[in-house]
């Protein structure tokens, strides 16, 4: 058995073509903005958790459920606020949080175990511009390490008495946010630079057509799987609007 012919267990779960994953990412991010309904949101949340489960990413599914669950609970609580102005303001914030978080959650879903070389090959086959491919490759390569980097930052904040805890977030929200984000940005810029330098010396920028040691081809099952999810998402929006017109 030669290299590249091996199909490992995890390959079955990651088998969906990276292009299809990208489409799903865009689909989910936009779909929840098209419809304002919480029911559509709930439906999309369920689908996303389902996507995590389908790839056997148990931990991711669990975290995502908790995140989504707490958003929905918050929304419910906000609806009981008697003061109309506060209710509207908080409602707006939660509305955006609920929806923008989808981008990050789907980004994480896509980045987990993503084979970046497959992804670049796939994008090149789609005639994506070179610059965009390199940028995306660096971003997706960097994403899985962010949580590690962030852990180190959180640790130091604790030791320096500016910990990322409830008290500090409430009393000094802006300062605390700044302390958490500044080192992360400085670190990210540095790593992105080093990664890009390494990529250049290894010819990622070459005009020649990229090959892959694994076969990258859109198969019928990729279209099928992605198709089902697209239908489910759009169907969700459609059903919801029909029901609302029907006065339910």
């Amino acid at each position, binding site marked *: 058995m030669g*290299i590249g012919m091996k199909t490992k267990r995890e390959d079955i779960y990651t088998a969906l073509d990276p292009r299809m994953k990208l489409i799903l990412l865009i689909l989910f991010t936009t779909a929840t903005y098209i419809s304002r309904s919480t029911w559509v949101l709930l439906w999309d949340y369920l689908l996303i958790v389902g996507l995590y489960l389908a790839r056997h990413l148990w931990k991711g599914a669990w975290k995502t459920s908790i995140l989504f669950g707490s958003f929905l609970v918050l929304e419910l609580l906000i609806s009981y606020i008697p003061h109309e102005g506060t209710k509207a303001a908080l409602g707006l914030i939660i509305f955006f949080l609920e929806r923008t978080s989808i981008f990050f959650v789907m980004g994480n879903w896509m980045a987990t*175990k993503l084979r970046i070389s497959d992804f670049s090959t796939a994008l090149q086959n789609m005639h994506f511009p070179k610059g965009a491919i390199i940028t995306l490759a660096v971003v997706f390569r960097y994403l899985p390490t962010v949580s590690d980097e962030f852990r180190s930052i959180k640790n130091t904040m604790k030791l320096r*008495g500016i910990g990322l805890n409830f008290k500090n977030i409430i009393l000094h929200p802006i300062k605390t946010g700044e302390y958490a984000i500044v080192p992360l940005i400085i670190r990210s810029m540095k790593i992105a630079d080093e990664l890009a330098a390494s990529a250049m*010396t290894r010819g990622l920028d070459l005009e020649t057509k990229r090959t892959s040691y694994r076969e990258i081809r859109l198969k019928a099952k990729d279209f099928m799987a992605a198709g089902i999810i697209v239908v489910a998402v759009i169907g969700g929006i459609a059903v919801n609007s029909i029901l609302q017109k029907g006065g339910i």
Partner: protein
Amino acid sequence: MIRIEDVSFRYSNSKDDALEHITLHIHRGEFVVLLGSSGCGKTTITRLINRLVPEFFEGELEGKIYIDGQDTSDMDIQDLAGIVGSVFQDPRSQFFATDTTAEIAFSCENVGLPREELCCRIERAANDLQITRLLERSIFELSSGEKQSIAIASVYALSPKILVLDEPSANLDSAATQHLMKILDSLKKQGYTIVISEHRVHYLKDIADRAILIENGKIKKEIRGEDFRNLSNKEANAMGLRSINLLSVSPRSVDYHTGENQIELKNISYYYGKSDEPLRNITFSADKGAVIGIIGNNGVGKSTLLEITCGLKKEMSGNFLINGKPVNPKIRNRDTFLVMQNSDYQLFTESVEKELYLGNTENELLREKGISLLKRMGLSNYLQQHPASLSGGQKQRLCIAVACMKNTDVICFDEPTSGLDYISMKNVSSLLHELSQEGKTLLVTSHDYEFLMSTCTHICYLNAGKVEDYFEVSRKTAPKIYQILFQKEEKR
């Protein structure tokens, strides 16, 4: 093979020349080591060869560089991809793939080799470098040494003619460094032209054909292979290089005995996840002024032990005592400090001065203390500068200053000397001596034999989750330390 003709270079964001009139000819199959202290320009020379200078790191370049007979001035970095293979300092930031096989394939894929050819090349690279056991693994599971082997395999797969390595041992432990030496030796025997920039040179002394000492952007001296091998530690240190004969490094002579107990760990155990080895019944105590070097294999839990000490991780069982009193992690958060390997995570504000007072309520007394601390760390001229614009060593010293501001009695250091040249290492070492003389207790994880010898009072050897050995550093125990640090190679 490589001809650098009268090259001067200045980075576009800098006022000073990084290189001045460098002329250097390297023959086919030659193994050349570029020596010199941090910031001397040796990295810039490696970048001339792979053309990251001036294409990626922009600036003013004069002179000509010929690679394999071709003038590179009208070539791109990627045109050289098939000729020059580059390996960088930090294996974490040179990987693109998330699994090893894809990583090895990466360069070949970019060049567009057909699939069958690709698979053959991956297999050959893995066989030749004896890393078949690493294939099809997740990059994140590998140790630094294994990552560096993969990085070399990846450029090797493309079979370039020249290999350029920029401080490849900076993040490796002693055993992994020995392994790197073996790989480089076999590449040399296959006829590769190898250029490597380093200040930790003990592992290169037997394979180098020529060493070139760079100082302030100029070639100071060329050293022939045999003279390089016979270099004494004193001569090497004078050039800013790490000692060449590690066994003749002598232990620190400063007396510290205070007899007052500062910290005590009683049966501390910690277990988390599958990736870390658990720590079991860690028991030891340290006096005021003791400097404890924590050594052991990668992944044995050295850093975890530091994090427990600082209260960042909570022990599952056991007691942690400071000054005879059991303290919980929250109090340890307050009463200890951890200087991490990478200072970027530890600096939060927009100026050196503000950094010092962060988390402390400012008052006159504190100000005075801060100013004297900065003076001691050689940072008084940088008061208003942004911490991110400091050099690596300066950032580290700023972190130590922050630790002193916090006025804690226990300070932990995670790999404080990885990638440091001799002078910086000595600076860190003497700073630690000073802290220890003030009665602070220091816990230091390290692989750096020379640093451990010249800094620590005690060694705590972790193996299989336990304290395997705990002893004082002296002339007598030196061979033991050496043996622990280098033994793993034989086991492999």
